[in-house]
């Protein structure tokens, strides 16, 4: 069913492939509905190699083909190298290059910054000025700092001045099954709300947050500023129904955590819950587009 490399997808072949892959019934009604819902922006994908196993889509070309076949129009990509590599300048340059070479307009690089490293400000500058990134991705637990660390606050302030979106990844995988020599705790978000309130202009996205962040702590964090979550680690039957009962729709983004997770997990969550068209469009692309536009490089250029 997949077209050969270089062969463009027709709208119909894409829809047929997406419907088949995700188990949707291929009837006229489904096709009309999918088209009506518009683009799909995935704010949580990763490039390069997961350190602990080979993944079916860890070649960037295959990942892009997978995303395209499911109707993804834009994907915000970090790099798995950002977890453990010390030379983040090189990791970010590779990420930017892979997004250019394989992304074909879909992949947007989000570089990794570690504020405990010497001269991290230069890595931040390169992300913004050299690679023209629209955001950065942070891994506080892998980089060994907590969210009350003054260096973290300084990084958020500089990112806000540069008008970059900041993604903070709370976990990468279930802490119960980590490699015994690569164990990290989930990021503790307790100090974050207070920090966010002190940084006007900060656009913050919490990745893989809904495994550990729920209830009043989630609400207070979302209330603190322009803070969004995505649904890659949202669980429970009817998970989106439950989340939207306690969370404003405009704070929820579509994120898959592919290729570490099967992309279809996030996609099928949109089907499992009974979303209104307004909710579906907001989660699929409108909220991410708003965030993306708010972090416009024009403001940075000034």
């Amino acid at each position, binding site marked *: 069913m997949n077209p050969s490399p270089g062969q463009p997808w027709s709208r119909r072949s894409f829809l047929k492939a997406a419907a088949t*892959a*995700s*188990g949707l*019934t291929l009837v006229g009604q489904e096709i009309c509905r999918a088209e009506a819902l518009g683009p799909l922006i995935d704010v949580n994908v990763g490039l390069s190699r997961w350190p602990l*196993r*080979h*993944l*079916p*889509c860890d070649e960037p070309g295959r990942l892009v083909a997978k995303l395209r076949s499911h109707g993804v129009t834009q994907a915000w990509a970090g790099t798995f190298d950002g977890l453990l590599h010390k030379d983040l300048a090189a990791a970010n340059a590779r990420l930017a290059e892979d997004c250019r070479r394989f992304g074909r307009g879909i992949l947007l690089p989000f570089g990794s910054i570690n504020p405990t490293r010497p001269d991290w400000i230069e890595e931040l500058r390169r992300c913004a000025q050299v690679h023209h990134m629209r955001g950065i991705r942070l891994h506080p637990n892998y980089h060994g700092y907590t969210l009350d660390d003054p260096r973290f606050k300084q990084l958020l302030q500089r990112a806000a001045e540069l008008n970059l979106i900041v993604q903070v990844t709370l976990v990468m*995988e*279930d*802490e*119960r*099954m*980590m*490699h*015994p020599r690569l*164990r990290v705790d989930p990021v503790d978000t307790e100090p974050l709300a207070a920090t966010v309130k002190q940084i006007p202009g900060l656009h913050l996205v919490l990745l893989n947050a809904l495994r550990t962040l729920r209830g009043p702590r989630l609400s207070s964090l979302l209330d603190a500023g322009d803070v969004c979550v995505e649904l890659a*680690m*949202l*669980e*429970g*039957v*009817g*998970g989106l129904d439950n989340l939207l009962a306690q969370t404003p729709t405009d704070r929820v983004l579509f994120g898959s955590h*592919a*290729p*570490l*997770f*099967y*992309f*279809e*997990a996030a*996609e*099928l*969550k949109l*089907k*499992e819950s*009974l979303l209104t068209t307004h909710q579906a469009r907001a989660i699929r692309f409108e909220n991410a587009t708003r965030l993306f536009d708010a972090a416009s490089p024009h403001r940075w250029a000034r």
Partner: protein
Amino acid sequence: MEIWDLHCHLSGVPGTTPEVRLENLLRYADRMGIARLCLSMGMEWSYDPSPEKMRQENDEVLRALRAHGDRAFGFVYLNPRHTQASLDELNRCVRDGPMVGVKLWVAMHCNEPELDPIIARATELSALVFQHTWIKITGNLPGESTPQDLAELAMRHPQATLVCGHTGGDWETGLQAIRPHRNVYADLAGGDPAAGFTEAAVRELGSERVLFGSDAGGRSFASQLAKVHGAELPNRARRLILAGNLQRLLRPILATKGIRR
């Protein structure tokens, strides 16, 4: 493609009665195209249930089955610490009732000899035995079994049909542990939708030994179905995992109950 879900619960689902909870579960199952659910354990769980608590939880599942027996099967929840009470409950719910399998959770490691009479009786009744397993780097519960424990049990009971719940969570290790034992099947349910799990299970065990389960309501049907829909598999394998294998395994006990499908 027909879908039967091996692994569902009444917990984590809204509703104050078993009937309403199953109704709510089915509402989401319908949206995901899931035809049948296997239910075990009651509305509130106990790690080490007394005989009375076991009976209460099984009664709740029986109530749900009475309301929606055309869509759900039951697995009787047993505690091997109470061997005779477990055998009595097995007879009540499976031999004399509508249930088709056994659910063993975390009361006792499954390689202990107390399980032997339960497994033997379940095998006489053609009931599937579903054993929860996990390998947690953070530490298992005191009685929580691993796939290695289940492999020991499988060696003692080569005629039993055993399901390795969650494939140990750490599925790379779990698959290796159960691989030599042809009577042990891998349950895909309950862990994160880590890409490559299902492909590895099919590669190591063969598609005939892999079963779709969700662990709903604690997990979403969506994230767990993605392990099959998102895996790079031939359609024949997908069909077997989603329903064919479970249908084949349940056929003998369903036949004894006069249920054809």
